[in-house]
């Protein structure tokens, strides 16, 4: 039953992400992307990473997509029709195939699939997913965390500098 459910969600995710690139209307593409994020969030919950799922929806579907929708509205992008050239199509397909081969290689040939961490399902249900992330973030990954705060500060400054003519 879980496998069946996974297959359904995965199929919806794939169909929606195809719609993101094939839709002519940019707002409809954005909507499909939101739906894709939703399916990803569901998959995260299935993988016992509920915190990731929540953040996926809050940050990606809730914040970044709002910005993208705003940008579409700000620039008043019209639906693009017949602007695609066979050149772009060819490049797209070849890059896509290359990535597919790469992913397949990584999954099958490399040691990536055999690496196992210390966190397992029993530990997650005992300690809690958020708590596990919290502990490792504030002990092992402290420096990246503090650098993130500087990065966010830079983002604020950058946005203001770009938008204001006179500071």
């Amino acid at each position, binding site marked *: *039953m*879980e496998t069946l*459910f996974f297959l359904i969600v995965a199929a919806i995710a794939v169909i929606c992400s195809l719609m993101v690139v094939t839709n002519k209307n940019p707002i409809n593409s954005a909507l499909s992307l939101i739906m894709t994020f939703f399916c990803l969030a*569901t998959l995260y*919950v*299935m993988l*016992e990473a*509920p*915190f990731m799922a929540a*953040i996926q929806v*809050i*940050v990606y579907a*809730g*914040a*970044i997509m*709002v*910005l993208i929708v*705003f*940008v579409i*509205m*700000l*620039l*008043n992008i019209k639906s693009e029709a017949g602007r695609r050239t066979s050149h772009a199509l060819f490049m797209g397909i070849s890059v896509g195939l290359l990535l597919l081969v790469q992913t397949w290689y990584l999954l099958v040939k490399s040691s990536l699939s055999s690496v196992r961490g210390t966190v397992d399902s029993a530990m997650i*249900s005992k300690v*809690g997913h*958020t*708590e596990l*992330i*919290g*502990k490792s*973030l*504030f002990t092992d990954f*402290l420096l990246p*965390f*503090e650098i*993130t*705060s*500087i990065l*966010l*500060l830079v*983002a*604020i*400054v950058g*946005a*203001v500098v770009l*938008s*204001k003519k*006179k*500071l």
Partner: protein
Amino acid sequence: MSPFAELFPLIVYTIATVLIISGLLLAAWWLGAKTTSRNKEMPYESGVIPSGSARRPLSVPFYLIAIFFIVFDVESAFIFIWAAVWDQLGMAGLLHITFFIVALLLGLAWLWLKGGLEWGPTKQVRGSRSEERGL
């Protein structure tokens, strides 16, 4: 225990809600009158015949708000993580999150001083507008 058992009712509830609501919409579409006329399909503008497209480019402050929202949303995601384990992390964690929050508060303060949060017509804008008009 698989998380599926908690997720499943949620999915069922979501699907049921979507189905019922679209059912209501369909029923209303089916039951309602269907007459069309050119005037009916025009956008409403208090009786004035609309001119030009309504899809006007929006002003920059909205766009800025969306960017700031992303920044502070990511920040709050980190604060959620800290708050879930804050007493196990103890004093060290408190110091780190203080640094984090203070950095973001500084950003907010800078934003505030530079007028990134201003919405009303500021003096500067008024001045530049009257310059444009040649006043």
